């Protein structure tokens, strides 16, 4: 029997890396600021101490070269984990990721796989603004040859990172900064979680809410509020953006007849469109309303709080959407204490 305990998402990440580094000497972790005293918001704590500065190290500010570096290491027997403090910085590495990593295995006639993980953190809040808030999971999912995951619980953070490190393909591992303090049950042992399929976070029968990344938290909060009115929403964490398996969503929508996709990203040409298209394809006859897509408003992310709040979607918008779909009056949400930046981080950045 596996014992579990409550740990944070942050701890789950370090634990996954430490566990795999212990198991396999070819695993190493690197990136800008990875080995400084802050350790990427604490998510690589303990690694330098245990494994030394050859297996966990900070690099020059050279995202492009350092991604190619990982590829070269991966092609010669190592299992690199490259870390970006913000998804936005990964834009400097797009040539390596898309032109090189994604196609190397194919282009080598299946001789040389690329066992590399790229962890990238999504920023949000405290005026991070438009150069520190991108998510880009739909971009990378669009490219064959890459796996893309967006774990939303400590359990998945650990288990999917373990599996990502063991996987022989390039895996883009996208973490939302706000999850880092989240606490949850995580198995003590191996804990590997498959890199495919969604996860039903909360069962329900009246409506299906498919969410990615931080939007799972918003969806769960919305579901809580709705539950008090007797509405049960099934909340599904999409979790694996590529390769994406829609079957759990389909099962749920066939039961509920309603579907909302809440993506932690912009809507146009995003992952939400993919989910919507697939749900429509599979549930055509059983849908009682069109699939609704929610996400960021179509703008760069602004700095100032009132606009930042307007930019992001959340529990309130989800509740309103459900009410509309089910033909319910708008409930009074003034007493609700939804998630906000201040709930998570106290004081200045």
């Amino acid at each position: 029997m596996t014992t579990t305990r409550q740990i944070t998402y942050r701890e789950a990440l370090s634990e996954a890396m430490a566990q795999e580094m212990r198991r396999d000497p070819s695993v190493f972790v690197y990136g800008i600021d990875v080995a400084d005293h802050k350790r990427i918001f604490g998510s690589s704590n303990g690694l330098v101490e245990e494994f030394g500065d050859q297996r966990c190290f900070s690099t020059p500010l050279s995202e492009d070269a350092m991604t190619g570096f990982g590829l070269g290491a991966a092609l010669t027997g190592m299992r690199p984990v490259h870390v970006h403090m913000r998804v936005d910085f990964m834009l400097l590495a797009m040539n390596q990721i898309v032109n090189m990593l994604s196609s190397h295995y194919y282009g080598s006639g299946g001789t040389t796989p690329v066992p590399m993980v790229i962890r990238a953190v999504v920023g949000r809040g405290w005026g991070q603004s438009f150069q520190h808030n991108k998510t880009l999971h739909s971009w990378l999912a669009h490219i064959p040859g890459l796996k893309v995951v967006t774990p939303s619980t400590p359990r998945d953070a650990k288990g999917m990172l373990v599996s990502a490190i063991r996987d022989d393909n390039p895996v883009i591992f996208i973490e939302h900064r706000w999850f880092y303090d989240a606490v949850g049950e995580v198995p003590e042992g191996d804990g590997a979680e498959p890199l495919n399929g969604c996860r039903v976070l909360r069962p329900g029968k009246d409506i299906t809410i498919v969410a990615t990344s931080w939007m799972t938290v918003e969806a769960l909060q919305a579901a809580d509020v709705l539950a008090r009115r007797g509405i049960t929403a099934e909340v599904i964490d999409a979790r694996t953006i590529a390769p994406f398996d829609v079957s759990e969503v389909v099962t749920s929508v066939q039961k509920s007849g309603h579907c909302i996709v809440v993506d932690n990203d912009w809507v146009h040409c995003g992952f939400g469109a993919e989910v919507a298209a697939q749900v429509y394809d599979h549930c055509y006859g059983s849908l009682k309303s069109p699939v609704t897509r929610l996400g960021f408003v179509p703008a760069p992310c602004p700095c100032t709080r009132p606009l930042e709040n307007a930019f992001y979607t959340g529990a309130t918008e989800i509740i309103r959407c459900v009410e509309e779909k089910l033909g319910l009056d708008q409930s009074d949400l003034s007493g609700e204490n939804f998630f906000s930046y201040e709930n998570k981080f106290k004081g200045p950045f």
Partner: protein
Amino acid sequence: MSAQALNRDLYRTVYLIRRAEEAIKENYLDDEMKTPMHMSMGAEAIAAGVCQALDRHDPVLGTYRSHGLYLAKTGESDRFFAEMYGRDTGMAQGKAGSMHLSAPEEGLIGTSAIVASNIPVALGAAFSHKQRNTGRVTAVFFGDGAIDEGVFWESLNSASLMKLPVLFVCEDNGYAVHIPAEQRHGYSDIAEVVSRFDCGVHRSESTDAEVIYTLTRDALADMSATGRPQFLHLKYYRYLEHVGVFEDFKAGYRPRDAFEPWLERDPVKVQREKVVGLLGEEAVAALEAEIDQQVAKSLEFAKQSPFPARSAVVEDVLA
């Protein structure tokens, strides 16, 4: 320009920058400036000296650490503080915050939170002015971390090749976040490397704004004589943590000892002593009072200003 006037101007600038950042420190814990603060305390002489040497409307570009650059370039603080407070009266209606200050009408084209990303932008601005024979020089400010990035080298190469009137201003505090230059640079002296390009090189460790001013004038003279871009390698000490308003010696990545000699020659102190010598204590105190008042008024203005309307979130996405 007389030594008096020059040094008075320089003091006005370094003092304004210092005072404004002190005001940020004093008010930041109220949690009303909801924007990540990258403070420039210790670097005042650079923004002041370089901008003084440039023509007022010469284009400049900077980074997320550009409070000093904005204030040196514009001299104003109302729109500055309003932006910090995220208000509609900020220079970008609060959409930009501390990391994206701009003042295009004064030449501050933009500042970016992506390391090194404005370096090539400077080349385009320089090209554009060169094409139109405006005689303008474009200056771009960046840290020692930025020279790790490939785009710095691409830009250095292209500016040298195209003989663009670009002034590269490397504000070298020896660290990128917490990683020292020795752990990032595969050479011992960046100025040595750069000098092998078709680019002038000038360096200083001075905290004296006038020295920086003179060095910049020399560089600009070199540029107009040779048509070559110029690279200023300027060392300084970052007083506070990478981001935030506190000291961070406890973190252990850099010793407080190293700070002391820099603090002795603090840029504001150095410049103050000089202007006191030139103009007398009284005149200096009056100037300081004037600036103190400007900052106090701006803070008030900012706090009283309204937030932008919610609808602004989708405005100005496309022109």
